[in-house]
């Protein structure tokens, strides 16, 4: 028969083991990101659109200009949004932004959740940053960041902000 003292000793050791394991998992270096926009497990660009969250979950969705009674075609909206995001994947050059406008508008037409994407790209196209001097509206830069975030988090496409 195991003595009570032995049982207590074993329990104490087990408690120490559990505590140490817990501490290890809570170490700062192993803490997942607290990033408000990017998740380490989010869909990378080579899986564009294949496993991304529904665009209807957009936190910035609003201000729809489409027919309020028209039902959203989320699949068609996502497909068009992926094309728009892929067009600007390399950066927000004038040519890339221009190429993204039509699919972004198509995405917004299919699903109002993509309206911010279309609006932001339209603003960037109409208010570009001068590539020679860096002059241009701050809103253009901020909108580019918002578009890149939306493309990655909702369309699964990585857009360069570097």
């Amino acid at each position: 028969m195991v003595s009570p003292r032995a049982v207590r000793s074993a329990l104490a050791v087990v408690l120490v083991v559990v505590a140490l394991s817990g501490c290890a998992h809570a170490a700062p270096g192993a803490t997942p990101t607290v990033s408000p926009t990017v998740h380490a497990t989010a869909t990378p660009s080579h899986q564009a659109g294949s496993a991304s969250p529904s665009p209807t979950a957009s936190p910035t969705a609003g201000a729809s200009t489409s027919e309020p009674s028209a039902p959203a075609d989320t699949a068609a909206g996502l497909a068009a949004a992926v094309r728009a995001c892929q067009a600007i994947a390399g950066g927000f050059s004038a040519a890339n932004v221009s190429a993204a406008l039509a699919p972004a508008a198509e995405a917004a037409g299919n699903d109002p959740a993509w309206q911010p994407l279309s609006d932001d790209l339209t603003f960037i196209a109409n208010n570009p940053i001068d590539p020679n001097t860096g002059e241009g509206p701050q809103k253009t830069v901020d909108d580019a960041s918002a578009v890149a975030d939306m493309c990655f988090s909702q369309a699964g496409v990585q857009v360069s902000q570097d």
Partner: protein
Amino acid sequence: MATPRRRRRTIIRAALLALVCAMIAGLPLAAPDAPATAALAQPAESVCVDTCTNVPATAQAAAQSLMTSYGNGTLIIEWAERAIIPAEIQPIANGTIGQTPQCNIDTRTLQTLVIIIRNYGSVQVSDLNRHCANDGVATCGSNPTSRHCVPSSGPNAMDITYIGGARTRGNDSASSILLRFLDSFLPNGSRAGQASGGDNCGVYSMPGLANISRFTDFCTHIHVDLGSTTAGLRNLRTR
């Protein structure tokens, strides 16, 4: 049949074995930065205290400090962007940057590089102001909204590929060490470009940070910028 004493000994041995196993298994998670720490050239602060003391207050003074570092090999510029010294940092140090204002760099970025060199012994940079030094691929034409290109008064982004001899790809422990340190003095609203986890960047951990948010980037470097904030570096002190 085993005696009570033998049973007790067996239980204690098993518990001790479990303890050792748990410690071994838990060690990498508890100290993920150990390999990078070992690779760094000198003991480093995890929070900017001594290294944030008497930081050059002006762009010119910070650039002069960086020119000294460049001269003694502790500021290393990658070959493709070698124009960073003659086109950007040297004119700021000389006080002649007004002749080529498109080549200017944000004062806080210059100060940050000074602090990084102080803390880790050296830094290798692959990008600052792309208007005047770039590799021909990542240019302000290809991405004019990059913080390497805006604002026109002086972009504030920096791409870092080594600190103290440890490679920083944005998906490694050296990058985590650097980000935690930067988080102790960069202004709130700063940003880091880190690997998305795709593009063969592998699995990586991200530290929880208070002042630096993230966007996805390729794992060839760690990108750091100050976003749209105009606030100065925090916790700088004079002695």
